[in-house]
């Protein structure tokens, strides 16, 4: 082959190198980060966000940029701003605001993108789990298992936060910084969708049992088993979300979304008893 002729691979790498950097505004970036923090449950309904000054320092952006981002979030109905002493920006405390945002995100997502998010999530979690099989100690697994077991009967919000902790901790047991960071990235993206299942106790228990099985397989150092457990659990969640997404097509008003969500949860609640043990 003529060495001067570019191979398809090097051509792909070239186009990757010169992919547009984009100029998404800093305010949009701040808005996206805050939205992620709220929709993934890192900040809960009614909780105060850091002050404008703190946000400006944390993000390393100008105060005016922070204000612009907060303005958009306020306009979207996600936060309230109170003036004066004890004031600040608070995550809207009316129930279901965050869930509605997450439901809309699911509706807006092409089915292929949802499935692909499931793929990358499954692969990252499995890769972390595989390394944890080789590297985690009995004591470390014991600590995570206790956190998980203690969380079993918590209400949905606190339960999801604890589960996110457990998932992050399991990822960190890989002893790989880069895998753990990738995990945080995909977890941040996927958690808001996964949380749509949480009103159903059966779905919570499926996730819970699957995490217990993952810990057990990790303890045994059984790489095949751990991959199998992770795959079954992620695919079951993606199927559930895919079904919900289909049901939501055509809904746009808040009440419609809410009604569909509740109807779907009612139906699949009985379905998950009959099969799909993750």
């Amino acid at each position, binding site marked *: 082959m003529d060495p001067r002729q570019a191979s398809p691979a090097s051509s792909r790498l070239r186009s990757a190198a010169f992919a547009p950097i984009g100029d998404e505004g800093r305010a949009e970036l701040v808005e996206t980060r805050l939205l992620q923090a709220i929709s993934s449950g890192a900040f809960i309904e009614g909780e105060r966000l850091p002050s404008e000054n703190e946000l400006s320092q944390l993000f390393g952006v100008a105060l005016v940029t922070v204000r612009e981002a907060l303005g958009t979030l306020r306009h979207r109905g996600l936060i309230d701003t109170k003036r004066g002493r004890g004031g600040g920006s608070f995550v809207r405390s009316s129930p279901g605001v965050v869930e509605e945002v997450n439901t809309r995100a699911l509706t807006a997502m092409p089915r292929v993108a949802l499935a692909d998010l499931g793929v990358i999530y499954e692969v990252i979690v499995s890769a972390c789990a595989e390394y944890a099989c080789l590297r985690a100690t009995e004591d470390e697994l014991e*600590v995570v298992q206790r*956190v998980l077991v203690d969380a079993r009967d918590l209400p949905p919000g606190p339960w999801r936060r604890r589960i996110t902790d457990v998932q992050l901790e399991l990822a960190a047991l*890989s002893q790989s910084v880069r895998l753990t960071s990738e995990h945080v990235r995909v977890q941040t993206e996927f958690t808001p969708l996964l949380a749509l299942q949480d009103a159903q106790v059966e779905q919570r228990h499926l996730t819970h049992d699957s995490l217990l099985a993952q810990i057990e397989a990790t303890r045994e150092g059984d790489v095949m088993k751990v991959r199998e457990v992770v795959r079954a659990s992620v695919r079951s969640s993606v199927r559930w979300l895919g079904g919900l997404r289909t049901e939501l097509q055509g809904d746009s008003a808040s009440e419609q979304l809410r009604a569909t969500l509740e109807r779907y949860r009612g139906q699949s609640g009985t379905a998950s008893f009959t099969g799909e043990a993750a």
Partner: protein
Amino acid sequence: MSAEQNAQCEQVIAHFDEFVDGIFAPLEAWLPRLQQQLSERLVQGPITGAQLTALVEAEAHAVLESTDRPLYGAGFCAAENVVDEGNPLSWWQGPERALLASSTFGPGQAAIDLHRLEWYRVPASTLERHIAGPFVDYLCSNEITLTASIPLMLDGKFSGVLCADVLVASLEDLLLPMLHNLDGAALVNSSGRVVVSTHHGYETGDRFASDVESVRSERYPFSLALPSPVAA
């Protein structure tokens, strides 16, 4: 291992112990002063995370400046009897010696159970100093880290830990040259996890089987493992 190898291992471990002594030294110097400050302050009851941060900032910076050890971060993490509101972790780290973001705004609903963290849990239960890791420190450095911690007691009650940490990456320059003549040797923690290694089959984070020949540190939970060529 041969007597000669054993002697070399002893020497490396002695160097490592001395290095770790140097991490603990500024914390030991800080301990009585912080004890004094906190017992005076707590007469009126527990304080907030923000008050703790203001109280310990200068000393935590002093720890970072006072030693030639490559410390990445330092601070104090308070038990519930000291801080009852806001973030109990006052921590500065990195080249900028920046306050940890979560120390600024508090953990809120995402408050972590400190007992999950080895560097807190072990001193809280043994009341002895400890050095935890290597582990992925996703709360602070987001690097593979060793964290040294000393328990702080107030009226006989465990009240928090003074800590300093070093990144494993910054230990390599110190340790790898010392392991140069011990091909296949690795510094491991008490569960056999590799800190640094010259062994081809083992990298930081991997674990050795417990029956590998090793020379233990007398002061810290680490040993120098030297797998026999057969095992390798």
